[in-house]
């Protein structure tokens, strides 16, 4: 916390604070974090969150493997990341403490549920001695709170079984934090009433625990005062907090409305993409058809069929599913039909780290299909930006009649931030006309292209007079008839490539954030945007000169990218992979782009990027 603590009882004002809720998968830490986030959002803070779940559904209670955490960064100014290191850790048991301690800076606060620090749990977490007593935590500010017992106490008259009552302790913690950071309590009380309205005892227990936590803060002399983080003055307008997966689903629905094409969404569940299916399946009144397929191949096939039939075909998955969809994507490339393929990247290779984030599918998105099968690739840079990126992917798919890959990742998918609600009226019309009449003296030629976009006509079944047959065999340009002629094949291979390359004329040039023309450019893509911006701002605050350019269109690249890169002596590309974007720009522009890799399933901290930039500046 940046401000100095005073000794008044009134809240002390902070410009920002990073809190991490950590406990057993069963302890409801994600829920506590979500609630704290929502009130803070509604309160007007800027914020960013980082949930972190174990890959197991529910590893044995009390073990390290079972620890689940949720980090939230709230501030009174515009911020970009969930925060490098928490100021406060709420640890519901020893495992939660052990799993998260390495991220806590000296002097930070550890809020411990001391009831949980008994032998069985200490053993499960692999503690020889009780860290609360053995002085090993002396570098921290330890606050011990008997959360379990007070929760039980506060709910004992409600006729809840102790086992169930105990479950409310996350609301106790939430109450305590709400007091500490002077959060409004009514929204949470309302939320509890609404959410648990049906199960009255649960509702009452949660309410009781929440209030107990809040009062405990007031009464127990844990801290001599609370803190407050004032609203941020973000650009005026209406906001909500949103995760990447939900923003992406909304972006697709917006594209559907703006193109007047119903969404046909087929998907096979996979972490971290499943929530897109869950979200879309709730909005059938938008005409959204969702189908849970038998596998990823089936899902891709369904989406291709829907596209042929004139719907906005979409399929989403994560790495392993992308492998399986490759052949169908190649078919869509050959059919030249609009299709959106979403890849929510996670830790690979193979099953890898299913619940962790990574950016290691970029080269697979570019080249992961046999033959010359080019596809545009769009990558959002923040959770809320998934809305725009999804809309853009749809625009390109429809206008150019091509499958498009929308490349997000686990951090964007589950992370959240305030979202400045777009003016839906202002969304462009991205609809494209279906072919409705013959286009070649009386005949219909399905591959007679628009000279400008090179897109072929989209004639959908049900249209009289335009009956045609197409498939994955090479086709004669124009007629679309099967054709094995050597020159025609080369022509088709090249025209498919040109069509995608030509999109560069239809996308904005890459913007360079370079106030004091620097020699070093940080080139980023996707979810590293926040960490890079934060690092760059810090360095500038220290008077250093650094430029930042961030790619959203990965294929084709913006037409000015080569020129931009050639303007810098040093180029650093931070990526959550072994250097995939670097390879692309090196091959394309022969510039000596250097990679900063992090392949750990967690986002870069601004500090990590800052450090590397400094090295390069000094080099």
């Amino acid at each position: 916390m940046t401000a100095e603590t005073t000794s008044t009882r009134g809240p002390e004002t902070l410009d920002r604070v990073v809190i991490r809720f950590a406990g057993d998968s069963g302890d409801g830490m994600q829920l506590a974090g979500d609630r704290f986030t929502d009130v803070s959002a509604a309160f007007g803070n800027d914020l960013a969150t980082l949930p972190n779940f174990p890959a197991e559904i529910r590893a044995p209670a009390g073990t390290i493997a079972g620890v689940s955490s949720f980090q939230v960064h709230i501030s009174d100014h515009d911020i970009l990341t969930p925060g490098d290191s928490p100021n406060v850790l709420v640890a519901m048991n020893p495992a939660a403490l052990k799993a998260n301690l390495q991220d806590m800076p000296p002097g930070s606060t550890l809020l411990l549920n001391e009831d949980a620090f008994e032998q069985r749990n200490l053993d499960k977490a692999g503690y020889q001695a009780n860290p609360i007593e053995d002085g090993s935590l002396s570098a921290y500010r330890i606050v011990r709170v008997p959360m379990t017992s007070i929760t039980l106490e506060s709910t004992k008259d409600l006729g809840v079984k102790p086992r169930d009552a105990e479950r409310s302790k996350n609301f106790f913690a939430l109450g305590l934090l709400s007091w500490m950071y002077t959060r409004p309590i009514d929204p949470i009380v309302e939320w509890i009433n609404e959410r648990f309205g049906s199960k009255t005892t649960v509702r009452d227990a949660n309410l009781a625990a929440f209030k107990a936590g809040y009062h405990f803060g007031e009464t127990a002399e844990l801290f001599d005062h609370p803190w407050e983080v004032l609203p941020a003055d973000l650009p005026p307008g209406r906001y909500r907090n949103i995760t990447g997966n939900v923003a992406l689903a909304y972006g697709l629905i917006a594209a559907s409305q703006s193109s007047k094409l119903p969404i046909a969404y087929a998907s096979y569940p996979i972490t971290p993409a499943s929530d897109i299916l869950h979200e879309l399946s709730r909005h059938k009144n938008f005409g959204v058809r969702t189908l849970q397929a038998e596998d990823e191949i089936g899902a891709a096939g369904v989406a291709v069929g829907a596209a042929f039939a004139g719907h906005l075909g979409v399929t989403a998955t994560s790495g392993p599913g992308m492998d399986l969809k490759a052949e169908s994507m190649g078919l869509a490339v050959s059919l030249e039909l609009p299709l959106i393929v979403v890849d929510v990247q996670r830790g690979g290779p193979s099953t890898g780290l299913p619940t962790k984030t990574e950016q290691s599918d970029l080269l697979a998105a570019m080249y992961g299909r046999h033959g010359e099968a080019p596809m545009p690739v769009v990558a959002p840079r923040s959770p809320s930006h998934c809305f725009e990126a999804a809309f853009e992917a749809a625009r390109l798919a429809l206008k150019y009649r091509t499958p498009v890959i929308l490349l997000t990742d686990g951090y964007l998918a589950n992370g959240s931030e305030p979202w400045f609600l777009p003016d839906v009226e202002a969304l462009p019309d991205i609809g494209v006309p279906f072919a409705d009449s013959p286009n070649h003296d009386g005949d219909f030629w399905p591959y007679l292209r628009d000279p400008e976009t090179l897109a072929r006509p989209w004639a959908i079944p049900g249209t009289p007079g335009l009956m045609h047959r197409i498939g994955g065999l090479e086709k004669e340009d124009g007629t679309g008839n099967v054709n094995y002629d050597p020159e025609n094949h080369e022509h088709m291979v090249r025209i498919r490539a040109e069509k995608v390359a030509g999109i560069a004329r239809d996308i904005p040039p890459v913007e360079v954030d370079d106030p004091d023309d620097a020699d070093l450019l940080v080139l980023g893509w996707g979810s590293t945007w926040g960490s890079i911006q934060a690092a760059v701002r810090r360095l500038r605050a220290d008077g250093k000169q650094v430029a930042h350019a961030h790619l959203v269109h990965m294929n084709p690249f913006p037409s000015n990218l080569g020129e931009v890169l050639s303007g810098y002596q040093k180029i650093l590309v931070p990526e959550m992979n072994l250097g995939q974007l670097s390879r692309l720009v090196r091959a394309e522009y022969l510039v000596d782009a250097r990679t900063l890799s992090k392949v750990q399933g967690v986002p870069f901290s601004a500090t990590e990027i800052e450090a590397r930039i400094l090295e390069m500046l000094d080099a």
Partner: protein
Amino acid sequence: MPDEAVKLSRKDFQSDQEVRWCPGCGDYSILTAVQLLLPELDVKPENLVFVSGIGCAARFPYYMNVYGLHGIHGRAPAIATGIALSRPDLDVWVITGDGDALSIGGNHLIHSLRRNVNFTMLLFNNQIYGLTKGQYSPTSEVGKVTKSTPFGSIDHPFNPVSLALGAEATFVARTHDMDRKHMTETFRRAHAHRGSSFVEVYQNCNVFNDGAFAAVTAKEARPNMLIDLKHGEPIRFGAEGQHGVVVNARGETEIVDVADVGEDRLLVHDEHRDDPSLAFALSRLADTPTVPTPVGVFRDVERPIYEGEVQRQLVGAQEQRGPGDLEALIGSGATWEVGG
């Protein structure tokens, strides 16, 4: 029924593409049967979509003057599902082969059948991989010597009718390329069925597996080797209908001489039985097309179709909540105003 549809003829359904199967291939007669049937049906060419995977059979759509999608190997049922899902107004057909549908496409096949997607699927079973020049297929008999099995194949084959019934198919039938009339009537029934219609068509690949079905489909063999299933009638066959099918005391289906048991003991065929067990039992009368083999409609039952239920949910949602309001959607949940 729209008038213009009435006047359609075979050639209205023929595309300008040269038909490219080997001379003598059974695929020709199936194509003819379909092109002759369509004018009799209440369909407009522009509402027809023929979807296929890869294989000789799968070239079929190119020869039809309707909408056609020649997909990738094994995925036709998935692609057809996408078409039907988004456009229940269309009349979707799937043309596939024993390799395309039962080998690489097996998973999509069984799932589309259980979902009861509304399409008509014709599986051209020639017990061989034709397009790749003669490897054995999942329907090839054990011991078959092919390019890939010089010592004879060792895989026990699928019985496509049994597999479809095990996969909850609502319409299952079998016919063969030597009998246009039987094909036509079977296809007509399949098309009339609402939901997934699965039709196994015995098809002769005269280049790589000539005569695979001759023992039952040759004109002279048919009376004694084909058991033509007729709804509501006792199941009998033979030149004078001298043979029949009964369920014996042990509950097992068996073939008998009608003279021995008497006509009333014969099993009466009921396509509409909710329980597929007897249809399944009939499919087991012949494991290979070398013994008396049932043809015709094994099963034809009603079940809600997938896209129909989807439609129901869409309409229901719109009635409940009204048509989607994008502004309301993105503004749902906790929002706040930042003053200017």
